[in-house]
């Protein structure tokens, strides 16, 4: 008969109580794993999203720079426009490697999302757009036949969603125009997957925004020139320069307050779980006062009793930890779905990434929690005096 088995059997005897306590630990661990997984996944997804935009600098119309950047990333209404002349003016700058103007327009499409309606995002681009994103490939079809053709190229996801293929006609409800699909991009894992692209001039005409654009994406030859380049552009009236590094930082900052809240919730969940475990074990110790006295009479040392109770606590936390990890893995997609609904900006790709390392750390954390929570009940049990314990309740 080993001490470990004794601890295990004691837990099994009080099935409901053990199950409830283990459940509490499991939920706390699941919350923690999901939050930490989200933390890692979100940063990675956002980094991927921004890096894959292909440009380091975004020039937009004056306004809130981060709102503009977020709009560029995600789409949505309230876009500001600038004159295309700005593009013509700075395109000659020698420090520029690639530059492309974009016109983003959004239209409410009542047919979208299975009839529930949603925002469809259109982007007017020039062929320079492809040079900024050399990794983008066509799944089928090809580039527009001309800069003012009534043609469209669809992102992978939107084409999938609307079941379109090359040659199909699409109707844009807000502007009552029909376009022919000439190409469909491969999946890029970015917001581009949900966008319908039009030739820039076509888009300007269709949305009645002649000579206007929403932004200019720029990639420099030397990343070291970034600061000076930004500095020079500050003098241009009516525009602002946003570096993508800044955008990244700002979105991370925006997220940090949400993260703080989430982490507080996780901390509270863990505290409640610890107190729950302590309470369960303490109750079990008090209930078993006589038995603990008997164990001592049978030769158990203080340390033996301490170990038995400690093991019970640790077992609860270990089992709870394992179940919590399984719950987090199984519920990851649900958490992701909810997060995508409530977040101000959700990058594409997986938001909750649960790595083996995260699982290992969480499990170890659960066990350490058990070790800490067990200290008090175990020392209470160990310090019971055999005679008083055996005769208690008489």
């Amino acid at each position, binding site marked *: 008969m080993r001490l470990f088995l004794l601890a295990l*059997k004691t837990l099994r005897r009080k099935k409901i109580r053990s199950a409830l306590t283990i459940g509490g630990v499991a939920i706390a661990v699941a919350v923690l794993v999901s939050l930490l997984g989200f933390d890692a996944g979100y940063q990675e997804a956002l980094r991927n999203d921004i890096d894959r935009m292909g440009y380091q600098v975004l020039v937009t119309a004056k306004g809130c720079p981060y709102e503009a950047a977020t709009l560029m990333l995600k789409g949505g209404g309230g876009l500001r426009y600038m004159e295309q002349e700005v593009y013509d003016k700075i395109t000659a700058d020698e420090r520029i490697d690639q530059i492309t103007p974009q016109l983003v327009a959004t239209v409410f499409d009542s047919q979208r999302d299975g009839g529930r309606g949603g925002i469809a995002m259109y982007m007017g681009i020039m062929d320079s757009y492809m040079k900024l994103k050399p990794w983008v490939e066509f799944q089928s079809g090809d580039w527009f036949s001309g800069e003012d053709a009534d043609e469209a190229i669809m992102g992978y996801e939107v084409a999938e969603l609307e079941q379109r293929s090359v040659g199909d006609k699409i109707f844009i409800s807000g502007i009552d125009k029909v376009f022919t699909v000439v190409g469909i991009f491969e999946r890029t894992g970015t917001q581009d997957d949900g966008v319908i692209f039009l030739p820039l001039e076509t888009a300007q005409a269709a949305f009645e925004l002649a000579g206007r654009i929403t932004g200019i994406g720029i990639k420099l030859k030397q990343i070291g020139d970034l600061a000076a380049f930004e500095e020079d552009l500050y003098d241009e009236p009516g525009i602002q320069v946003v570096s993508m590094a800044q955008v990244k930082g700002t979105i991370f900052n925006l997220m940090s307050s949400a993260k703080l809240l989430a982490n507080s919730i996780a901390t509270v969940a863990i505290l409640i779980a610890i107190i729950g475990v302590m309470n369960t074990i303490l109750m079990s110790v008090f209930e078993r006062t006589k038995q603990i006295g008997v164990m001592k009479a*049978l030769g158990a040392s*203080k340390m033996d009793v301490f170990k038995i109770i400690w093991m019970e606590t640790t077992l609860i936390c270990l089992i709870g930890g394992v179940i919590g990890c399984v719950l987090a893995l199984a519920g990851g997609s649900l958490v992701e779905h909810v997060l995508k609904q409530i977040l101000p900006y959700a990058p594409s790709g997986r938001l909750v990434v649960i790595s083996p390392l995260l699982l290992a750390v969480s499990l170890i954390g659960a066990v350490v929690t058990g070790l800490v929570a067990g200290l008090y009940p175990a020392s209470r049990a160990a310090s019971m*005096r*055999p005679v008083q314990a055996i005769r208690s309740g008489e």
Partner: protein
Amino acid sequence: MQKTMIETEGLTKVFTLPAEEIVAVDGVDLKIAEGDFVSLMGPSGSGKTTLLDLLGCLDSISSGRLTVFGQDVSQVGEDDLVAVRRGRIGFVFQEFLLLPELTAIENVELPITFARMPRDRGRALGLLEKVGLGGRANHLPKELSGGERQRVAIARSLAASPSLLLADEPTGNLDTANSREIWSVFERLNGQDGLTIIVATHDEKLGSRADRVVHLVDGRITG
């Protein structure tokens, strides 16, 4: 002349309560030799249990002298008493006090674990057979009758090969037939194995079957 196993001189135990002091054992002088079978008899509250606790090194004494296995334990603190009793003194209680989550044989194995002896299922089974419960080794206490439980408790008390067995009202919760059966087990253990046994009991009839009867009243030996 047999060797002395336990010797007390003026052994006293005082419990201090908020309102009063209770002298549970009052100046007891007693000698127990190896192989003795002693019954401690007396009315409720006469100090039988407390005396048994002291002799079994479960509790520390207030004053006087107590020598167990030739070792003066009068000054030994409670934490160190465990080393004196472990593997040498077995206990049987009125309420059996088996661990309910363990089977009969697992209960018997407990003292072996605590005494850090190698795991020995054969020995545990042998002890259960000795008390006539070889066939019920894998039953939980709740599946056993009162008499059977007490026999498991006796087997358990013997697991770590003690030379002294202390039993506190072992038949107090049993009917006459089971009480007689338990007593016979004690007599066999004493007669065949030479185990020293001290039993505190109310039962005049059974108690008087012991080699020696010690009467206690108000914590004092009266005869």
